[in-house]
């Protein structure tokens, strides 16, 4: 049997490895036009910042794929004939027949729908090719670099340019950095810290048009408030959407993403999908574009392809990120704005970018989730708290179990406990 996998990102590559692990005789082909090997997308920024070599982006050693007998095809898929089970590339390349197909095409950056969005020197930061373009365009440093989008990728690009001493301004739609995800006090804490570092933010600012010069290069942008901001370099980091344009107008059922059931099956037999490109059927849930989800889905999709039914149950939510040198972790559900029945206990350091926010349900005091800024938590312990539906009181009493900062670090969890003691004497 031949399993073709389109997309060698974390979902597709994880699926390939799991398939091989459980099925030594399968023929497996990994197809990608971005890169001939699976690389750590999350680490692209560190290559730009000279902390990693381009080669060490490869998650597995170069000879790994041959040893695993996983063929790799570095080519661009034009279309798929689902009834004939054939994948078509450029006319010169023979079509590829498959028995089962996994679509793991990932995501693509969202564009701003406005005038001038195709001008030169407007970038995204998603792919290896994006990184190459950013590298080329910043070898002569721009004078006024603008980042549009106050989220994780925007702040990564800000850090990249900052590290090369290129002044950069961040435009944020919300009233503070990542305020659509972080609660207001945390969003402000992070933004203030970054401003002190020398990153100017412009909040509640959206782009309504880009203006170009004679050579078709960006020279300014107009905000929705009508303000003109001059810039010679811009990076649009307003999120991603499923990379499925080449699958539109085929029998494959697509909505926001490729629609799958909990077993990663699409509407077409023998065609599966996993990762950032999917949307689960019947849920109104948005697509998840997260490294962790994509990895887990790749693993589960592999089992389903190998006829071992494994249902996708989203794990207890967790995420982590880094804003310059501030780490961020979250476990469970913490909404940017607390729901009416939710309460929080919050501690923040007097002057350092450190905070802990614990959220619980008011009526039964059940612990719902945690946000950690500048502090590391032990995932297994927080997951246990959440799975066992522990009360906030139990969690606070046992908070040091979740301490994960390196040895000799201060135990900030104790500060949190004393905040609680003051509130509940």
């Amino acid at each position, binding site marked *: 049997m031949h399993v073709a996998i389109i997309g060698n990102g*974390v979902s597709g590559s994880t699926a390939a490895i799991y398939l091989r692990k459980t099925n030594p005789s399968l023929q497996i*082909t990994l197809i990608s036009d971005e*890169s*001939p090997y699976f690389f*750590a997308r*999350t*680490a692209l920024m*560190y*290559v*730009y*910042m*000279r*902390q*990693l*070599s*381009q080669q*060490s*982006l490869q*998650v597995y*050693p170069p000879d790994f794929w041959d040893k695993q007998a996983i*063929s*790799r*095809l*570095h*080519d661009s898929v034009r279309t798929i004939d689902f009834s004939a089970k054939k994948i078509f590339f450029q006319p010169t390349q023979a079509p590829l027949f498959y028995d089962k197909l996994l679509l793991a095409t990932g995501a693509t950056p969202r564009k701003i729908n406005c005038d001038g969005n195709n001008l030169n020197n407007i970038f995204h930061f998603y792919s*290896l090719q994006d*990184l*190459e373009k950013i*590298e*080329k365009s910043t*070898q002569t440093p721009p004078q006024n670099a603008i980042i549009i989008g106050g989220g994780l990728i925007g702040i990564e690009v800000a850090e990249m340019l900052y590290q090369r001493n290129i002044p950069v301004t961040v435009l944020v739609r919300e009233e503070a950095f990542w305020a659509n995800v972080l609660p207001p006090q945390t969003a402000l804490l992070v933004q203030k810290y970054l401003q002190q570092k020398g990153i100017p933010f412009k909040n509640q600012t959206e782009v309504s048009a880009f203006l170009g010069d004679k050579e078709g290069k960006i020279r300014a942008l107009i905000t929705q408030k009508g303000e003109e901001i001059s810039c010679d370099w811009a990076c649009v980091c307003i999120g991603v959407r499923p990379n499925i344009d080449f699958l539109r107008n085929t029998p494959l059922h697509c909505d926001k993403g490729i629609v799958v059931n909990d077993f990663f099956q699409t509407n077409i037999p023998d065609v599966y999908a996993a990762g950032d490109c999917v949307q689960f059927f019947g849920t109104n849930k948005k697509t998840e574009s997260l*490294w*962790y989800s994509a*990895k*887990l889905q790749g693993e589960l999709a592999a089992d389903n392809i190998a006829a071992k039914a494994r249902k996708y149950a989203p*794990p207890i939510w*967790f995420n*982590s*990120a*880094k804003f310059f*040198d501030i*780490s961020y*972790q979250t476990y469970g559900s913490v909404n940017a704005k607390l729901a009416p029945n939710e309460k929080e206990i919050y501690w923040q350091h007097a002057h350092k970018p450190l905070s802990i926010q614990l959220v619980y349900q008011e009526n039964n005091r059940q612990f719902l989730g945690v946000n950690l800024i500048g502090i*590391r938590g*032990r*995932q*297994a*312990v927080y*997951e246990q708290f959440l799975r066992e539906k522990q009360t906030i009181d139990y969690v606070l009493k046992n908070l040091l*179990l979740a301490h*994960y*900062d*390196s*040895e*000799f*670090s201060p135990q900030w969890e104790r500060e949190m406990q004393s905040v609680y003691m003051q509130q509940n004497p």
Partner: protein
Amino acid sequence: MTKPENNTVNIALPQSFSQKFVHSLQHRGIVAWLLAVVLSAFYTCIYWFPHYLQGFIAWFNPLSEYLRHRPADNWFLYGSLYTLAVLVFGVRFLIKYRHSRYQIFRTLSLLFFQLIFAYLLPAFMALMAQPEFYFTYFFPLDSYVLRPENVANLLHTPHGTGIFFLAISVFLSFIATPVLTYFFGKRWYCSWVCGCGALAETAGDSFRHLSDKSLRAWKIERWTVYSVLVLVILLTLILWINSLSGGSFLGDFSSQFARAYGFFITAMFSGVVGVGFYPLLGSRVWCRFGCPMAAYLGILQKYFSRFKISTNAAQCISCGLCSHNCEMGIDVRAYAQQQQDIVRASCVGCGICAEVCPRGVLRLENISSSK
């Protein structure tokens, strides 16, 4: 079937002169080769041709006279430069990792042991006409201390200080080492006490990424490092058998063996290659491939220790900064992305993998249970 790779732009290539210089130094460029030649040549002179360094050694006479009331020799020059390098680059390291208390405490410890126990105390003991003795080097790293002729010397020093030294040395090798390693892993020595570690962690910090991460290198490492341990044990045994049998055992084989060990292992491996090749092979070549103490500690760490690097469940994003920065050539990422804890004989517990991880996935721990 696979098409040729088509990545054309080289990302993050150095631009300015200083960037090019640093890049060349840290990526086996011409600067790195030149430095390696200079360092190896210096070691060669120290060991075998100290007369080439006479002028240089003379510069250290005032310091030597002040500390030890005697003129400087090649070993005083070496110890002084070594300690100076540890202190200077140690300060640089402390600034670089000032946000981590583990790194600060560990580095201060290395600086302390190098300056006091490996430099000033031996000088003071020379002043007091006591035998040369280093509290921080013991068997099997110190292949000399337990040799019959040295034991005989120590047993006959006036006031019994030699006996005291000998007892300390035996205690450190056979009691303190297993006990401390059980509780803390080999790091208590390699990354907190040892002078080789001190130089590697400070002056060698810029070269830590050069360690070979391949499986082949790991295989070679296991062969060489345990071979050296076997060699030093054999050497000591043969010397004792020869000594106890009144020199009748294998003729003068044992003394030739000792000379060969001194030449190939102590001088060539730990010195000329171990430090001289920092810019080419990374900072812990000796510690990884040669050090018999590391082999001994490694066995203890792997099978009789509570130390491990734990992985924070599913948080790894496979970025590879941990593996890139591992001076012992451990592919940390390979474990972390599989959610496995890291228990490796070679890990010296420097903690840099945990330090550079952008998601805080790794933690050095002395806990044997899963929590």
